[in-house]
């Protein structure tokens, strides 16, 4: 075990993946000698050479198109998109190509070796284009897996599992926590399962569900609620597609209440999908409307960064409203 921040955990996972599987290649804008604008790929070029860790020209559609081709040839392609906000130029290569590669070819070809890493999320004064949480654009695309870790231990285990998974995976890293979140991380190789939610805290009165950086916020809200005698079951979804319907259903059948929280805007956000599914699987157990605490339906603002965010206070209030409904 050693103490790592989230960036170091990501870097450590990439290091292990590249060491164990020589067909693993890391690339993107500034990931080479410089080691990435957040330093997630530090020292990888020194260690594995320029042919396995390198800079690309500044073209997101090119990066993912290149990654698709490399993965189709049987390589483990780990592509970095510098900010999730800049993934959209590659949307076509992700949605029409990567996601459909295996299906459309009848499994003659696939890009299962593809992993796309990208820092996401607000709270860093990033304004419109350094704050976005675009996960819901991808959860609606069959063929993709979408994974979002909450801390260094989760990041390493889930990233290693994503790299080795035989499907294209988008791995969104909470950049607000890159250095802020630290913890004990095993130095050895380990994986955490994709498609499996993590029950962080058991409770009786309400299920509180989130993913990524939002879990830190929800931990605070849940602690405040506990002081009021409200027992929350806190769940980190971890994988958004395919998501763990069973764990959430079982929890809501027990607690009778559900709150889902994410930074992305409310409309079309992934909480809507979860809410619709859970009202179907838990209709007879629900004792209050499913609550969604999310970002506003606006672009991500700079000056009102704090006001926009679904912070612990907004979640605390929503928990109380739900329990007293």
């Amino acid at each position, binding site marked *: 075990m050693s103490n790592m921040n989230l960036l170091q955990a990501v870097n450590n996972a990439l290091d292990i993946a590249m060491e164990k599987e020589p067909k693993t290649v890391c690339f993107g804008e500034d990931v080479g000698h410089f080691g990435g604008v957040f330093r997630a790929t530090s020292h990888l070029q020194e260690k594995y050479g320029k042919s396995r860790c390198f800079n690309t*020209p500044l073209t997101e559609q090119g990066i993912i*198109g290149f990654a698709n*081709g490399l993965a189709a040839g049987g390589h483990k392609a780990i592509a970095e998109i510098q900010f999730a906000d800049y993934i959209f130029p590659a949307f076509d*290569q992700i949605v029409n190509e990567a996601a459909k*590669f295996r*299906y459309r*070819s*009848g499994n003659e070809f696939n890009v299962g070796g593809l992993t796309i890493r990208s820092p996401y999320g607000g709270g860093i004064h990033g304004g419109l284009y350094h704050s976005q949480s675009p996960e819901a654009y991808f959860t609606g695309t069959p063929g993709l897996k979408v994974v979002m870790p909450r801390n260094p231990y989760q990041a390493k285990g889930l990233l290693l599992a994503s790299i080795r998974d035989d*499907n294209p995976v988008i791995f969104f890293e909470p950049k607000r926590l890159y250095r802020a979140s630290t913890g004990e991380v095993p130095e050895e190789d380990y994986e955490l399962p994709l498609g499996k939610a993590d029950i962080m805290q058991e409770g009786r009165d309400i299920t509180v569900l989130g993913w990524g950086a939002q879990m830190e916020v929800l931990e605070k809200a849940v602690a405040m609620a506990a002081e009021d005698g409200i027992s929350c079951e806190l769940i980190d979804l971890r994988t958004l597609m*395919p998501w763990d319907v069973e764990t959430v259903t079982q929890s809501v059948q027990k607690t009778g209440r559900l709150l889902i929280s994410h930074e992305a805007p409310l409309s079309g956000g992934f909480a809507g999908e979860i809410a619709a599914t859970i009202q179907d699987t838990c209709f007879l157990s629900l004792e209050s409307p499913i609550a969604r605490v999310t970002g506003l339906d606006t672009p991500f603002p700079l000056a009102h960064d704090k006001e926009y965010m679904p912070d612990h206070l907004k979640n605390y209030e929503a928990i109380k409203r739900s329990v007293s409904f």
Partner: protein
Amino acid sequence: MANLKQSAKQSEAPVVHNPVFIDGSDLTTPTLKILRQDGSVYEGAELPDINKELALKIYDTFQFIRALDERMVAAQRQGRISFYMTEIGEEAADIGSTAALADDDMIMAQYREQGALAFRGFPLDQFMNQMFSNEKDLGKGRQMPIHYGSKDLHYMTISSPLGTQLPQAVGYAYGYKLEEKDNCVICYFGEGAASEGDFHAAINMAGVFKVPAIFFCRNNGYAISTPSSEQFAGDGIAPRAVAYGLKAIRVDGNDVLAVLKATQEARKLAIEHNQPVLIEAMTYRLGAHSTSDDPSGYRSKKEEEKWREKDPVLRFKHWLIQQGWWSEEQDADIADAKRKAVMAAMKEAEKVAAPHLDDLITDVYDTPPKHLQEQLAELKAHIRQYPDAYPKTAGRIDHE
């Protein structure tokens, strides 16, 4: 190192003290022609590496594609298949270039390159199975007709979005380079697709990464109804590649010997020097864009006739006859045999059942996740309830 080289380059550039603008006229791109329409070879022209066996294989593929295109357009008109695209007029471009490759060089095509696949030996019944989207289709009946693919033949499955295969070709070729394989990727696309951002991304990355890739542009004058004069203002596609550090060549795309020669040389550059190359083949789409298109709305019969006189298949036939490798009698026989074979294969494929319903959810992921299994089970229950509404599947799911 790179910086030093660059500054050295800059210091060698001529310096001026009054503004001088360069334009396309500073660069003239010649067109490689080897074969005249009457089958004679231009004086001084250097022939490609070709023997009788290869020549006849190319010509046999020409004949097959003509027969296939003709028959399948008719089949679409009769409503037997939903869609078709011919490559009439452009046979020399894709078949001639594929003939220059090793059998295990990856082909990443657009959608008008069935000739390349045929040259590789894709069986006639597989062409048909794909077009009839039956249960024997390698693609499991999921994609529209002519979206072929074959792992065995190193022919990447076609997708409809234009230009997406271009940066993918760079990545695939980079894989070859990593593994130090003596292979290259050939990537086909039309001059319309070259306006997509993926073209720019791809040739820039190919130049920077120095990958063994050949970008093969079929410049046939039209993207559906849009003439090339409304597609680009520069001198075609070839000069763009030079600006990105690729080597480029323009060839007469109706001259199979010129296409073969250019691609053989390009392959050497790609494999021996990791030097990406772009080949621009000037040709003409003699047919409609697709069976959903009628070209009489946007171009003249006269223009079509002018190009019909440059028929690449006829041109090559004349050459073969002059070599003493072919005769008009053989020609009539083979054309007839191809037509009959195509007809017979079509009738066979029509009889093959549709893919099993279970394949609706396989291959979305490596294994179907739970939610897909549930959706399939629900669908099956629904079909059992209304069997008459789903005749293709109802009978088969009941017998499980």
